[in-house]
Protein backbone atom coordinates (compact mmCIF):
# COMPACT_ATOMS: atom_id res chain seq x y z
CA UNK A 1 0.00 0.00 0.00
CA UNK A 2 0.88 3.66 -0.15
CA UNK A 3 3.47 4.95 2.31
CA UNK A 4 3.22 8.34 4.01
CA UNK A 5 6.17 9.90 5.81
CA UNK A 6 6.05 13.10 7.80
CA UNK A 7 8.93 15.22 9.00
CA UNK A 8 10.07 16.35 11.43
CA UNK A 9 8.56 13.99 14.02
CA UNK A 10 8.86 16.65 16.73
CA UNK A 11 9.14 20.42 16.56
CA UNK A 12 9.55 22.91 19.39
CA UNK A 13 9.06 26.61 18.70
CA UNK A 14 8.88 29.90 20.49
CA UNK A 15 5.69 31.86 19.99
CA UNK A 16 5.93 33.98 16.88
CA UNK A 17 8.24 31.66 14.96
CA UNK A 18 7.48 30.17 11.56
CA UNK A 19 7.65 26.49 10.63
CA UNK A 20 7.34 24.10 7.72
CA UNK A 21 6.02 20.54 8.02
CA UNK A 22 6.58 18.05 5.23
CA UNK A 23 4.62 15.04 3.99
CA UNK A 24 6.08 12.62 1.43
CA UNK A 25 3.97 9.93 -0.19
CA UNK A 26 4.99 6.97 -2.28
CA UNK A 27 2.35 6.87 -5.03
CA UNK A 28 -0.26 8.96 -6.82
CA UNK A 29 -3.13 10.25 -4.71
CA UNK A 30 -6.77 11.21 -5.21
CA UNK A 31 -6.96 13.13 -1.97
CA UNK A 32 -4.56 14.71 0.51
CA UNK A 33 -5.65 16.33 3.74
CA UNK A 34 -3.88 18.03 6.62
CA UNK A 35 -5.35 17.72 10.11
CA UNK A 36 -4.54 19.18 13.51
CA UNK A 37 -5.28 16.94 16.48
CA UNK A 38 -5.82 19.03 19.57
CA UNK A 39 -4.98 17.87 23.11
CA UNK A 40 -8.53 16.52 23.51
CA UNK A 41 -8.09 14.21 20.54
CA UNK A 42 -10.33 16.06 18.12
CA UNK A 43 -9.15 16.06 14.49
CA UNK A 44 -9.55 19.49 12.95
CA UNK A 45 -9.57 19.79 9.16
CA UNK A 46 -6.92 22.23 7.98
CA UNK A 47 -6.69 21.68 4.24
CA UNK A 48 -8.05 19.46 1.51
CA UNK A 49 -5.25 19.83 -1.02
CA UNK A 50 -4.56 17.02 -3.53
CA UNK A 51 -2.65 19.58 -5.60
CA UNK A 52 -1.84 23.29 -5.69
CA UNK A 53 -1.61 25.89 -2.95
CA UNK A 54 -4.14 27.13 -0.41
CA UNK A 55 -4.02 29.63 2.40
CA UNK A 56 -6.15 30.08 5.49
CA UNK A 57 -5.01 32.85 7.80
CA UNK A 58 -1.59 32.03 9.25
CA UNK A 59 -1.61 28.59 7.66
CA UNK A 60 -0.90 27.67 4.09
CA UNK A 61 -0.25 24.42 2.26
CA UNK A 62 1.25 23.35 -1.03
CA UNK A 63 1.04 19.95 -2.69
CA UNK A 64 3.27 19.03 -5.63
CA UNK A 65 1.56 15.86 -6.76
CA UNK A 66 4.06 15.09 -9.53
CA UNK A 67 6.88 15.05 -6.97
CA UNK A 68 4.76 13.35 -4.29
CA UNK A 69 5.06 15.75 -1.42
CA UNK A 70 3.06 18.34 0.47
CA UNK A 71 4.14 21.15 2.78
CA UNK A 72 2.25 22.84 5.59
CA UNK A 73 3.43 26.30 6.59
CA UNK A 74 2.62 27.84 9.95
CA UNK A 75 3.52 31.49 10.38
CA UNK A 76 3.64 33.54 13.57
CA UNK A 77 2.96 30.45 15.65
CA UNK A 78 0.80 30.66 18.78
CA UNK A 79 0.57 28.39 21.80
CA UNK A 80 -2.82 27.22 20.56
CA UNK A 81 -1.09 25.76 17.50
CA UNK A 82 0.40 23.06 19.73
CA UNK A 83 -0.71 19.51 19.04
CA UNK A 84 -0.16 16.83 16.45
CA UNK A 85 -0.33 17.57 12.73
CA UNK A 86 -1.27 14.70 10.46
CA UNK A 87 -1.06 14.34 6.73
CA UNK A 88 -3.44 11.76 5.25
CA UNK A 89 -3.76 10.55 1.68
CA UNK A 90 -6.21 8.55 -0.36
CA UNK A 91 -4.25 6.48 -2.85
CA UNK A 92 -5.11 6.75 -6.51
CA UNK A 93 -7.17 4.03 -8.17
CA UNK A 94 -9.92 2.26 -6.22
CA UNK A 95 -9.24 3.38 -2.66
CA UNK A 96 -12.79 4.79 -2.29
CA UNK A 97 -12.09 7.27 0.46
CA UNK A 98 -9.71 5.16 2.53
CA UNK A 99 -7.19 7.49 4.15
CA UNK A 100 -3.64 6.44 5.03
CA UNK A 101 -2.15 8.63 7.74
CA UNK A 102 1.43 9.63 8.33
CA UNK A 103 2.92 9.27 11.79
CA UNK A 104 2.39 12.93 12.53
CA UNK A 105 4.47 15.89 13.65
CA UNK A 106 4.21 16.83 17.31
CA UNK A 107 4.37 20.62 17.55
CA UNK A 108 4.98 22.39 20.84
CA UNK A 109 4.83 26.19 20.92
CA UNK A 110 6.21 27.86 24.03
CA UNK A 111 5.09 31.34 25.15
Amino acid sequence: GIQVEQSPPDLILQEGANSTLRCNFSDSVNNLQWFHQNPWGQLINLFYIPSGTKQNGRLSATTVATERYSLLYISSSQTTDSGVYFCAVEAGGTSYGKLTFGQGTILTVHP
Partner: protein
Amino acid sequence: SAVISQKPSRDICQRGTSLTIQCQVDSQVTMMFWYRQQPGQSLTLIATANQGSEATYESGFVIDKFPISRPNLTFSTLTVSNMSPEDSSIYLCSVEGFGGGTTTYNEQFFGPGTRLTVL
Protein backbone atom coordinates in the same frame (compact mmCIF):
# COMPACT_ATOMS: atom_id res chain seq x y z
CA SER B 1 -19.24 20.57 7.06
CA ALA B 2 -21.46 17.92 8.62
CA VAL B 3 -21.97 17.69 12.37
CA ILE B 4 -20.75 14.31 13.59
CA SER B 5 -21.39 12.99 17.08
CA GLN B 6 -20.16 9.87 18.82
CA LYS B 7 -21.41 8.09 21.89
CA PRO B 8 -19.98 7.40 24.37
CA SER B 9 -17.22 9.99 24.45
CA ARG B 10 -15.19 7.77 26.76
CA ASP B 11 -15.57 4.54 28.69
CA ILE B 12 -13.65 2.25 31.00
CA CYS B 13 -14.44 -1.42 30.47
CA GLN B 14 -13.43 -4.78 31.90
CA ARG B 15 -11.60 -7.31 29.76
CA GLY B 16 -13.84 -9.85 28.07
CA THR B 17 -16.76 -7.47 27.69
CA SER B 18 -18.00 -5.66 24.57
CA LEU B 19 -18.71 -2.00 23.85
CA THR B 20 -20.81 -0.53 21.06
CA ILE B 21 -19.89 2.93 19.79
CA GLN B 22 -22.42 5.02 17.91
CA CYS B 23 -21.74 7.56 15.17
CA GLN B 24 -24.50 9.97 14.10
CA VAL B 25 -24.30 12.50 11.26
CA ASP B 26 -26.73 15.38 10.78
CA SER B 27 -26.97 14.86 7.03
CA GLN B 28 -26.92 11.94 4.63
CA VAL B 29 -23.43 10.89 3.61
CA THR B 30 -22.14 8.46 1.03
CA MET B 31 -19.21 7.01 2.91
CA MET B 32 -18.63 6.26 6.58
CA PHE B 33 -15.43 4.86 8.03
CA TRP B 34 -14.10 3.68 11.39
CA TYR B 35 -10.53 4.34 12.52
CA ARG B 36 -8.49 3.34 15.55
CA GLN B 37 -5.78 5.41 17.19
CA GLN B 38 -3.69 3.48 19.69
CA PRO B 39 -1.90 5.47 22.40
CA GLY B 40 0.83 7.66 20.94
CA GLN B 41 0.20 6.34 17.44
CA SER B 42 -1.32 7.51 14.21
CA LEU B 43 -4.76 6.59 12.89
CA THR B 44 -5.42 3.26 11.21
CA LEU B 45 -8.49 2.43 9.15
CA ILE B 46 -10.54 -0.44 10.57
CA ALA B 47 -13.30 -0.69 7.98
CA THR B 48 -15.64 1.03 5.58
CA ALA B 49 -19.23 0.95 6.81
CA ASN B 50 -21.45 0.15 3.83
CA GLN B 51 -25.10 1.07 3.94
CA GLY B 52 -27.29 -2.00 3.61
CA SER B 53 -24.45 -4.51 3.31
CA GLU B 54 -21.53 -5.92 5.27
CA ALA B 55 -18.64 -3.64 6.14
CA THR B 56 -15.37 -3.90 4.23
CA TYR B 57 -12.51 -4.63 6.63
CA GLU B 58 -8.85 -3.71 6.27
CA SER B 59 -6.05 -6.20 6.72
CA GLY B 60 -5.65 -7.12 10.37
CA PHE B 61 -9.26 -6.40 11.34
CA VAL B 62 -12.05 -9.00 11.35
CA ILE B 63 -15.81 -8.86 11.63
CA ASP B 64 -15.97 -11.11 14.70
CA LYS B 65 -13.84 -8.66 16.67
CA PHE B 66 -15.22 -5.40 15.22
CA PRO B 67 -18.78 -5.93 13.97
CA ILE B 68 -20.14 -2.85 12.22
CA SER B 69 -23.65 -1.84 11.31
CA ARG B 70 -24.90 0.92 9.04
CA PRO B 71 -28.68 0.81 8.84
CA ASN B 72 -29.06 4.15 7.01
CA LEU B 73 -27.12 7.05 5.49
CA THR B 74 -26.71 8.97 8.76
CA PHE B 75 -25.86 6.34 11.40
CA SER B 76 -23.32 3.60 12.09
CA THR B 77 -22.14 1.53 15.04
CA LEU B 78 -18.84 -0.18 15.80
CA THR B 79 -18.67 -2.90 18.44
CA VAL B 80 -15.39 -3.82 20.07
CA SER B 81 -15.90 -7.42 21.16
CA ASN B 82 -14.26 -9.55 23.84
CA MET B 83 -12.03 -6.65 24.80
CA SER B 84 -8.46 -6.88 26.07
CA PRO B 85 -6.16 -4.09 27.31
CA GLU B 86 -4.62 -3.97 23.81
CA ASP B 87 -7.96 -2.57 22.57
CA SER B 88 -7.45 0.59 24.64
CA SER B 89 -7.53 3.28 21.96
CA ILE B 90 -9.43 6.20 20.58
CA TYR B 91 -12.02 5.06 18.05
CA LEU B 92 -13.12 7.62 15.47
CA CYS B 93 -15.75 7.60 12.79
CA SER B 94 -15.38 9.69 9.68
CA VAL B 95 -17.65 10.67 6.82
CA GLU B 96 -17.24 11.69 3.23
CA GLY B 97 -19.57 12.69 0.48
CA PHE B 98 -22.18 15.20 1.50
CA GLY B 99 -23.18 17.97 -0.73
CA GLY B 100 -24.30 21.52 -0.64
CA GLY B 101 -22.50 24.82 -0.41
CA THR B 102 -18.79 24.88 -1.00
CA THR B 103 -17.94 21.56 0.65
CA THR B 104 -15.56 19.57 -1.47
CA TYR B 105 -17.13 16.23 -2.15
CA ASN B 106 -14.08 14.11 -1.34
CA GLU B 107 -13.10 15.90 1.87
CA GLN B 108 -13.34 13.66 4.92
CA PHE B 109 -14.46 14.84 8.36
CA PHE B 110 -14.03 13.10 11.70
CA GLY B 111 -16.19 12.71 14.75
CA PRO B 112 -14.87 13.68 18.19
CA GLY B 113 -13.77 10.13 19.00
CA THR B 114 -14.48 7.59 21.74
CA ARG B 115 -11.67 7.12 24.23
CA LEU B 116 -11.73 3.49 25.41
CA THR B 117 -9.75 2.08 28.32
CA VAL B 118 -9.82 -1.66 28.96
CA LEU B 119 -8.71 -2.91 32.37
